[in-house]
């Protein structure tokens, strides 16, 4: 079964600072990878997804970007954080033909 490692668990960053959140996957090859954001009391908002190395699709225009430098590594970045970037960020993966998602433990980002 798949395992997702996501770090850090919490992060407090000033407005205008850069961001890098990393997610790595074990137990599978060539997974589909996803970055979600979850606002308090809200559903999951898909930010980016990737079906392979270097292949990134963006769902929502925003201040963030994503990269997939290796098969099982997915990175969420920003050059300059905004207050509105605060939230709970989740990395997820799924395998081809497998409909279920496995989630990481999440990163609570607070931009101050």
């Amino acid at each position, binding site marked *: 079964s798949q395992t997702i490692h996501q770090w850090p668990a919490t992060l407090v960053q000033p407005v205008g600072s850069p961001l890098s959140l990393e997610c790595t996957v074990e137990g599978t090859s060539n997974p589909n990878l996803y970055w979600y954001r979850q606002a308090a*009391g809200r559903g999951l908002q898909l930010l980016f997804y990737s079906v392979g190395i270097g292949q990134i699709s963006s769902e929502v225009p925003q201040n963030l970007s994503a990269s997939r430098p290796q098969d099982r590594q997915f990175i969420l970045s920003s050059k300059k954080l905004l207050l509105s970037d605060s939230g709970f960020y989740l990395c997820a993966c799924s395998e081809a033909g497998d*409909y*279920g998602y496995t989630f990481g433990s999440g990163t609570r980002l607070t931009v101050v």
Partner: protein
Amino acid sequence: EDQVTQSPEALRLQEGESSSLNCSYTVSGLRGLFWYRQDPGKGPEFLFTLYSAGEEKEKERLKATLTKKESFLHITAPKPEDSATYLCAVRLDSNYQLIWGAGTKLIIKP
């Protein structure tokens, strides 16, 4: 527009008081419906996948059912440790992405 709606937003029960959570969907071509449990500050944890109307799945005190328009998550004789937010999502025929409901926050009082 494809949409998933969960109700109620929050549900408070006494320990042992059975109830149901609802997930209604309006989508063009359902490939699968998923239930997840999410504890505060944690990522969602997979519970069930349902693929066709009439299907049912059980796990401990939880049972998920599916019709052509909605899914129910029945919880029987809940315990305080069942307190969590329960999320529903659907996958469409057209792609592998999931459409998520906003969740139901379940609180079980001892």
